[in-house]
């Protein structure tokens, strides 16, 4: 007695083989494998880790009222001692003596321990690099994301008009014409209140030709893509180092101003990368699928698109850190930025330049440190680019 063949719910073995299966490795794992073949990039990563540890250690050892290694301790009788020299013991009081027993990297023209000062400066370089690039990446992702995702939507004419009212009003207020300024601001505000019920729902229009008489007022004026990309063009017109120098010189001396200014003037590259990625991702099936499921715009952007667009941003951020460290060093070499006596690698070198023939270590130690750190970031960034984008490596 044979039973009739029944279709089963569990698929047979050969059907399993044909079924599409997920790739065996994640993308991160795959990229890591490619990265680990690149010896220079690995060296860069290792140097970066060491630099990070040194900078954190430097912050812990040299800050506070009773630092372990005092970067500001002046010993005039010990000035310009070469590296690895032991102190002239009889001339120093016990609290002036270097904690390591010797001056590992020598002393500067005030007898301050260069090793302690280098440790203190490492933290400045690290934070400037990371915070400045963090700011620029955030702005870049936001600008590029809006331009790429909402690029085909437009501001309506009435919105542009309201914005112009606000801008001119604000400008007049700032320049002292309070009467006219308040009138314009008031007109803008009145319009805003009038339109408030519609603002949230349809802020950006996609419609090409609104019908009726309202078309004149509610028509498309300026697409978001045009608006943001023209702004990028404007920002790219400024000579960057000169702009940073001007702003830093006008603002009060502080490390935070430098970070913010570098961040605000270097986001254009990231914005362009993110926009380009978003333009191509927007047309892909998984985004269409997400949209068909009714996923909201912001969730699509944050959960589906940004993770896929992050690779070029990561690469440009790594190289951006190198550039930011170089910029900060250049600024403190010119005497801007962190106010003395706080040490940075740039100002150790700048102080030491008067003694380049008598005390070359004051030039070479900070210079080499900057060189090695920046080089490692550049090498790691390039390695990352190859690893994340294997097609490029064919070239």
């Amino acid at each position, binding site marked *: 007695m044979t039973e009739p063949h029944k279709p089963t719910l569990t698929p047979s073995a050969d059907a399993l083989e044909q079924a599409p299966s997920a790739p065996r490795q994640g993308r991160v794992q795959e990229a890591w494998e490619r990265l680990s073949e690149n010896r220079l990039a690995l060296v860069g990563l290792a140097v970066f880790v060491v630099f990070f540890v040194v900078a954190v250690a430097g912050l812990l050892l040299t800050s506070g009222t009773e630092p372990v290694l005092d970067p500001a301790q002046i010993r005039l009788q010990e000035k310009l001692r070469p590296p690895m020299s032991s102190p002239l013991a009889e001339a120093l009081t016990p609290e002036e003596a270097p904690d390591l027993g010797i001056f590992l990297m020598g002393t500067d023209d005030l007898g301050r321990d260069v090793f302690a000062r280098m440790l203190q400066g490492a933290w400045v370089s690290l934070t400037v690099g990371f915070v400045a690039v963090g700011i620029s990446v955030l702005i870049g992702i936001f600008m590029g994301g809006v331009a790429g995702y909402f690029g085909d939507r437009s501001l309506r004419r009435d919105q542009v008009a309201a914005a112009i009212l606000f801008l001119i009003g604000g400008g007049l207020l700032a320049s002292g014409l309070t009467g006219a300024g308040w009138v314009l601001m008031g007109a803008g505000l009145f319009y805003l209140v009038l339109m408030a019920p519609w603002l949230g729902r349809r802020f950006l229009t996609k419609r090409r030709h609104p019908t009726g008489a309202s078309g004149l007022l509610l028509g498309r004026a300026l697409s978001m893509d045009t608006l943001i990309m023209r702004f990028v063009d404007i920002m790219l*017109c400024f000579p960057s180092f000169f702009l940073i120098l*001007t702003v830093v010189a006008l603002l009060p001396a502080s490390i935070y101003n430098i970070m913010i200014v570098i961040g605000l003037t270097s986001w254009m590259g990231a914005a362009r990368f993110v926009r380009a990625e978003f333009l191509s991702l927007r047309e892909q099936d998984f985004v269409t699928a997400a949209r068909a499921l009714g996923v909201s715009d912001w969730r699509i952007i944050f959960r589906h698109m940004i993770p896929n667009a992050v690779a070029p941003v990561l690469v440009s951020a790594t190289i951006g850190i190198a550039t930011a460290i170089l910029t900060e*060093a250049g600024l403190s070499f010119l005497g801007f930025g962190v106010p003395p006596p706080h040490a940075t690698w740039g100002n150790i070198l700048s102080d030491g330049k008067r003694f*380049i023939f008598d005390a070359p270590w004051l030039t070479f130690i900070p*210079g080499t440190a900057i060189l090695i750190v920046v*080089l490692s970031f550049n090498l790691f960034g390039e390695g990352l680019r190859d690893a994340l984008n294997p097609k490029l490596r*064919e070239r």
Partner: protein
Amino acid sequence: MVSFIGRSVVQKTVTLFFVSVLSFLIIHLAPGEPSQVDPLNPKFTPEMVERFRKAFHLDEPLHAQYLYFYRNLLSGDLASWKDNRPVLAKIWERFLNSLPLFIVGTLITWTLSFPVGIRSAIRRGGIYDRSSTFLAYLLISIPGFFFAYILIILVVTRFHVPVIGMETFGMADATLPRMLMDRVWHLLLPSILGATGGIAILSRYVRSQMLEVEGQDYVRTARAKGLPEEQVHYRHALRNALLPFVTMFGLILPGLIGGSVIIESIFSWPGMGRMAYEAILARDYPVILTVNFLSAVLVLAGTFISDLLYMVVDPRIRL
């Protein structure tokens, strides 16, 4: 073509307008005023400050100041606040000093990058390619001021020639060849320093362009029909790889102004960069804004020229 020119001229004028507004706002909304630069100077009485503010329209509202500024700039009688000399004449004088640095630096960049880039593309993966790649990263990463001091130590201790400034002091009665050599030595180091970053970037770019062209079908065809390697590289590949570089003639234009602040400061070179730096320290707003404006003009003109050149050399491009 004509519509492209018209469109981009309009677009670039609008961009330039916004750049001028933005730079004006950045300068004027920053804390501090030029009339407060030296409050401890006993000669700086309140009446002086008041007269100063009046003379430079600082007591007017901001938009009026903006109009005054750009009217004066365009009519050419904008004066520096520091020494009351016309800004354009001042910039022109410094520009002539920076020009030799720019020319020599550009020549060094372009004559070195192409051979290095082409060679490392042809010998891809070899010792030469890898070491020139590493060297390029090294040159990008080295801080300009550190490299400057290395070179100064090297030249001064090995060749015993002075290098700071534009010429050695007291060379007026020297013979002509001596004077020329002196000028060349003084010119050499800042030019090399100005060229380092350019060499590194440009040679990498030449290499990647060359590699891309070498992978094209017509290069394989040329090789397949038995042409000698030399001819494949230089007649088939190189000519096409050179195409994008024609446009770079436009993009080096912004380098004309600006100059390097750091390098000119180290070498006490009285060029544009140093003038801009001094203007920043003295809060000489007309000079700062004019330098900024001119460099924006050069950036826009440079991209315009490079677009045009691209259209001329590559008929496939239709903008």
